[in-house]
């Protein structure tokens, strides 16, 4: 089992407290605990969650024994095809017709936001593991979902701050020209300027772009020390690949990636990505606990897990623990119980769920290893420092979430 004693102890204490407080008639809503896994199984975001995330979910359920207090656990899964109405429709159907108790996965932000609206209207519960948008627990927060692994705020915050502190004080921004890119650029600009750096130039490129050579040339001409990538997915991958072909790093400039996953780095190879600074919520080789779980996962799937896939296991286990202790799958009670219990497992350190639904935990600043320093196909990051949970995420004081009293 992967949840440790501390969690267990505090959970038991909590369960006891709830029982004494009179919540004793709590019950399972029916004859099973049902978890629906909704993710992009066949499109752009397939590799960061996708079928591998479903494996992680199944692993969590198997490790839990396949049942909670004698009630069996059933898993549903669906491909949202990155379409908000397919996602919303599927979840509505799950709640109305299948009595699904928890929706897990949730990757593309359009799908996630649509699904959380459905969850709120139908009193469901969801754990978001794949999405990046920090708005999910900000203006789009609901009492019916929790955002687990990461969001753009610590990514921008962690990377930009660390880079400026290391002397990278002049930035050129490559920004994807749509809402997400602009938000990321805004976050980075603020952090860079607060720490005494400056933005010397930038370019808004269309989304999506396959050929970045022109923009890389402009970045080279800008004389900035750091080229910040305020984009995601294939745009980031293409930008980094092209930068390496044009010798950007050899000429003394450095890339700072803001939203990069293990599968992206693996796809590009270390030759193209070495030296890249990034922020991650988890890395399989960061310590013994993480390694032990990741190796079990690798045996099943044949790939090392991304932080999203690890987060799916971690969040599902936390959910099942809460259900087991409470003896109910009532969303409101479970949501409260999950927030009460601290989260300390192979994935999250110093983790807790805030009132806005954000699960804050320690984040890590990482640098991609050089091909010489790497000892294996998946040995790609070196963890440079830890960003403490309470500093990493957007402070509640700045929150626009309706659940936060500001």
């Amino acid at each position, binding site marked *: 089992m992967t949840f440790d004693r501390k969690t267990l102890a505090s959970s038991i204490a909590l369960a006891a407290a709830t029982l004494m407080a009179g919540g004793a008639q709590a019950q399972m809503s029916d004859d099973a605990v049902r978890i629906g896994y909704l993710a992009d199984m066949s499109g752009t975001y397939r590799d960061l969650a996708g079928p591998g995330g479903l494996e992680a979910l199944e692993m969590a359920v198997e490790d839990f024994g396949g049942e909670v207090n004698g009630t069996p656990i059933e898993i549903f899964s669906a491909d949202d095809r990155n379409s908000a109405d397919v996602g919303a429709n*599927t979840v509505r159907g799950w709640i109305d017709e299948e009595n699904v108790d928890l929706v897990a996965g949730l990757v593309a932000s359009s799908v996630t*936001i649509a699904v959380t609206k459905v969850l709120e209207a139908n009193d469901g519960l969801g754990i978001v593991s794949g999405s990046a948008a920090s708005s999910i627990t900000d203006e789009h927060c609901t009492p019916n979902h929790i955002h687990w692994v990461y969001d753009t705020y610590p990514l921008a915050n962690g990377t930009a701050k660390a880079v400026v502190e290391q002397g990278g004080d002049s930035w050129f921004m490559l920004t994807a020209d749509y809402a997400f890119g602009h938000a990321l650029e805004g976050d980075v600009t603020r952090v860079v300027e607060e720490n005494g750096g400056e933005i010397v130039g930038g370019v808004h490129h269309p*989304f999506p772009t396959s050929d970045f050579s022109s923009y890389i040339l402009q970045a080279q001409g800008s004389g900035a020390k750091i080229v910040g990538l305020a984009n995601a997915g294939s745009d980031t991958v293409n930008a980094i690949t092209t930068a390496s072909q044009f010798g950007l790093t050899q000429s003394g400039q450095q890339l700072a990636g803001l939203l990069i996953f293990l599968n992206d780095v693996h796809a590009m190879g270390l030759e193209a990505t070495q030296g890249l600074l990034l922020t991650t919520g988890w890395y399989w080789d960061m310590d013994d606990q993480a390694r032990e779980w990741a190796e079990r996962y690798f045996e099943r799937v044949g790939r090392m897990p991304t932080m999203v896939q690890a987060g799916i296991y971690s969040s599902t286990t936390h959910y099942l623990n809460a259900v087991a202790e409470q003896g109910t799958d009532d969303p409101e009670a479970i949501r409260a119980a999950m927030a009460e219990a601290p989260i300390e497992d192979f994935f999250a350190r110093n983790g807790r769920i805030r009132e806005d639904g954000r699960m804050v935990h320690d984040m890590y600043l990482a640098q991609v290893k050089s091909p010489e320093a790497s000892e294996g196909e998946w040995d790609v990051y070196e963890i440079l420092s830890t960003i403490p949970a309470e500093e990493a995420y957007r402070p509640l004081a700045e929150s626009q979430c309706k659940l936060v009293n500001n």
Partner: protein
Amino acid sequence: MMGTSQTLTPALRRRRQAKLRRNTLYLVLVAIGLVAPFVAYPVFLMKVLCFALFACAFNLLLGYAGLLSFGHAAFLATGGYFTGIMLASYPGLTPELGILIGTLAAVVLGILFGALAIRRQGIYFAMVTLALAQMVYFFFVQAPFTGGEDGLHGVPRGELFGVISLRSNVAMYYFVFAVFLIGFAVIQRAVHSPFGQVLKAIRENEPRAVSLGYNVDAYKLLAFVLSAGLAGLAGSTKTVVFQLASLTDAHWHMSGEVILMTLLGGVGTLFGPVVGAGLVVSLQTQLAQSPLGNWVSVILGAIFVICVLSFRSGIVGEIQKMVRKNFK
């Protein structure tokens, strides 16, 4: 006298019978539509109806005017986004007005696209509509009010005419059903009117239609705008149902999907697109949750190939052929 009435009567009777049969069919279908939400899941049915209307609008152009548009997603998305923005930013606006505005936006876009595209035929027409729709897609990605990849969320369903709340799925369903019937009736009337006959004439032989003195371009443009407007109506209604608008509706894959629905159901038949939309939507929802979930696009592609190779009249088209063979 006797002779003429004897030769006329069977023909007349047959025509009357056909009309009676058609009207009975309509009545039965409307009755099915009315009880459907108590049998099947209303949200699913609403989705089918929205896509059915979309496919019918597309079919008006392909099936009756012979123009294959590969950019109809642009109208669906334009209707959806405009309705969504209006309803989300002006809380006082009633849903039917929001839908009207979305539809008008699609009509305006249809006039612009149509004026450019109808100058070409066949493959050129398909490519031009595709490229124009692509421009619309980029616009929606970048425009600040669409929310980019996040999409536009929190569109209120509101109260119909300011009176009837659409919050319940059943109430919403009947409204969508009514919208669908109106759209379908417009298409049915257009197809069976002299306008529809001229369209068919243009499809079969354009030079001949020109030589008969018809202003072919005006007819084509009208058909295009009508089709665009109805596609916009479908998109607008869908936005109210799901309370969101997203980029999926503007992507060119959506333009491909509507072709698939029409092709599968039967090009140039009134009911074909409805059947096709029903099948494709159920396939997507059912398949996506099965162990074959990851293979949805492969399966859709295979259906495409099979339809084109050996099933070109579509389901309704094949049934019509069978009926004609057996009852004549």
